[in-house]
């Protein structure tokens, strides 16, 4: 067992984990963050995508111990102060989901995409999301949702010009309490 300390969705956790534990297992089984799901086990589908220090990673492709000392954001921590992220709203409104299983990963990956390229072309969206599979939608509405969020981001960005890595307003009062999920 190894002790790790990870900040997940704004809460600091300190836990003993087996070194072989995958980050996705830790999130789901130790922390109960079931919004992050497992689709393929082989790092092909992207359903398990989360952010590590603001950059997307496939959490089935990473060990929990590798997240030690880092900050993880899951789909459950994307909305800030009860306000949905523009991508969440867009996926909802554009019917960019059917069974919804790929949705958390798609949104987290789209976030990363828009962070690096706030005004992507349709082709750039397709390329940026290539590592995420959806078996239901045929992808059309997912592209539309990302386009809608990008448009919105541009409009609000012009107004405030301030935000964290995910395009959210910076929250200076992130919860600081330490929670032991398994202890």
């Amino acid at each position: 067992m190894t002790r790790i300390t990870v900040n997940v969705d704004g809460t600091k956790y300190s836990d003993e984990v087996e070194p072989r534990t995958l980050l996705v297992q830790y999130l789901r089984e130790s922390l109960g963050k079931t919004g992050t799901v497992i689709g393929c086990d082989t790092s092909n589908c992207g359903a398990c995508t989360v952010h590590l220090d603001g950059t997307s990673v496939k959490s089935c492709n990473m060990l929990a111990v590798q997240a030690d000392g880092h900050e993880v954001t899951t789909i459950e921590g994307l909305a800030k102060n009860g306000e949905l992220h523009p991508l969440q709203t867009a996926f909802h409104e554009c019917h960019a989901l059917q069974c919804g299983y790929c949705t958390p990963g798609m949104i987290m990956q789209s976030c990363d995409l828009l962070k690096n390229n706030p005004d992507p072309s349709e082709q750039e969206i397709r390329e940026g999301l290539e590592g995420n599979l959806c078996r239901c939608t045929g992808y059309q509405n997912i592209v539309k949702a990302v386009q809608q969020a990008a448009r919105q981001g541009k409009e609000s960005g012009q107004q405030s010009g301030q935000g964290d890595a995910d395009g959210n307003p910076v929250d200076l009062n992130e919860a600081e309490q330490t929670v032991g999920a398994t202890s």
Partner: protein
Amino acid sequence: MSHLSERPANPVVGQEIPHESAALHVTGAALYTDDLVMRTRDVLHAHPVQVPHAHARVTALRTQPALAVPGVVRVLTAADVPGVNDAGVKHDEPLFPSEVMYFGHSVAWVLGETLEAARLGAAAVEVDVEPLPAIIDVKDAIAAESFQGAQPRVERGDIEAAFDAAAHVFSGEFEFAGQEHFYLETHCALALVDENGQVFVQSSTQHPSETQEIVAHVLGLASHEVTVQCLRMGGGFGGKEMQPHGLAAIAAIGSRLTGRPVRLRLSRTQDMTMTGKRHGFHSQWRVAFDADGRLQALDATLTADGGWSLDLSEPVLARALCHIDNAYWIPNARVNGRIARTNKTSQTAFRGFGGPQGMLVIEDILGRCAPLLGLDPASLRRRNFYGPGQTTPYGQPVRHSERLAAAWDAVTRTGDLDRRRAEIEAFNAEHPDTKRAIAITPVKFGISFNLTAFNQAGALVHVYKDGSVLINHGGTEMGQGLHTKMLQVAATSLGVPLSRVRLAPTRTDKVPNTSATAASSGADLNGGAVKNACEQITDRLRNVAAGRLGVHPSDVRFGADRGGIISAIGGTGELIPWDELVHQAYFQRVQLWAAGFYRTEGLHWDSATMHGSPFKYFAYGVAATEVEVDGFTGANRTRRVDIVHDVGDSLSPLIDIGQIEGGFVQGAGWLTLEDLRWDNSDSPTRGRLATQAASTYKLPSFSEMPEEFNVTLLEQAHEDGAVYGGKAVGEPPLMLAFSVREALRQAAAAFGPQGTSIDLASPATPEAVFWAVEEARAAASGQPDDGHVTASSNGDHGVVPVQPHGPARHPESERVVGRQAVEPAGVRP
């Protein structure tokens, strides 16, 4: 009660609303079965003991070593089954087999405190086997006469006379692959024992009632002692219609024996190696045309590759035979079907349920024969459409066949096909190593379960004293938007805003004896039942309102458009808010809930003679696809897709268009990318599925999206035989993807001289397209390799397909459905 298809003014059905669970999905709050594990205490985890042989007799099973592994709690074997050791209902699918029937067949399950303990325990179980010969390939099964189940035949007209008189006769063979469902959520069940030994199973199942039935018979319990709930599925596509039952039963046995909750979730590789897929088929055919290219006769024998047990192979085969005509009038037909038994997973339902396979055969025939007839494939297809008054080979009138032409013409117009075809001709003339082509193909798909008995549904609607509404119905949600549509139906029937209606998860103790959510029929059947329940309630409320408003009950109007306000034609002009009326009705002791029921009227089907009118209606659609093929590699891209599809009066347009887009892409995956490879060598891994993860099994991704994708719903498409005039949409759009395959064939042909007939393997992977291009080039160099389609000279009848000679009988699957279905057994002369 109002007419089934009639909509009130300003209905909630027909509005573009997003998926009812969308808010939960985008925040990660939506729960799937495996998410419940983290909310349940003391859960045990189940892991299979898979045997790496395609076919073998188990001579010894030693579980003791597993029990020595720390954390292993119990090993489940056949000896632990208190009831029937069968994962199905046909007694050909032992849950714990003594004979390994496919590579990776599980013979025992290990329960552990953690999944890791269970996995190590499973690895420690010792299984001795005596290997047996294995049949992997469908052709080997045919040669060995390894078949299972009934061998039905659809027959009409005088085949021999038609071939006698035909101007053109062609014969050929065609074998095509199956498809892995790859629902993004793998199979999962969580079983617990309630008070008094009753079992509660949460399962990722499209068919909770059958999961309940099988859990009960495996445990030796009555159905009322087992409850199955399905919150939602992360995709189903037919793969969770029959396959979840045995897995749920394993979890349930474990739970009964240990008294603890048992979770069984398959890893992706377990899911791919253990559960059934779409059937691949082999077909042998000959076809007759008149001098104008009109189909005169089709004589075909289809062999479905069923895998190791029957599962749903018989009804899948029946639907294949009932769809080999697709959109075309074939006056004389003889279509035989049989099911090969091979040592592979037991193939099962997959979106379209055999329909796509039957239709693929005729589309392949037309695609290959058009050049030999000297006709443009589009023209060949169009001239063979069903006309008014014509019937299918199995005897059903093709109602609304004019919609085929309407959709075809609409696609031709909106897709600007004439102009683009001219452009493509110019492009191809200038590009020796890159060719483009547009293909246009139709879909006609029969809606209803072939077996009449399944076309029934139930619903439970509660109106609470505060006016809020809770609905429950027998259908399951797998992303297709069924629950969204049911909410819209309820809001429409009750005349309340959508926000007043909530839907509770599908459970067998709420609505019993449900059919699978399958055959695209979920909205038709359950919508009929929800509407029926709601109207029982409004009929009672109508009397209460009539008394208060001083009018005749039939003059009372419920209105969603006015926020749930009840008014009357004439009378005092008083308006009663919904909540107030409900409250008043309660105090008058009026029943505010109802159980609804629906049965599809006017269906009849004899599965022994394969004759009747099994479908309530047909769904139609047409797609045109343009592709570009690289002559050096066969690599290709889809430049543009135009679709016009008939969903009746759409119940929920956003949902329906999503189904069309998703279905099309999934169909294109089956036909052009997804390549199941089974080890057919004589090595020790014979029978192993080589493509057992997304790393080796290529699924459609963003990269294969059509560059331009236009989907329109057919206008003026009311269907008066279905709830609120809508049509089923789950399966039919999958088959629009034939246009991709045919476009690839035409583009490959463009590398050869005009009139080159091209064989294209299925899936038409880039590699297959490359070989098709080579075939065309061989024709150009004067070495035509057209031995695959045999063109017969005048008076020659072509190569007659093998005629299976089994007696006509009802399928095994109906034998157990009920005596009623079995008794009127017709015997084929």
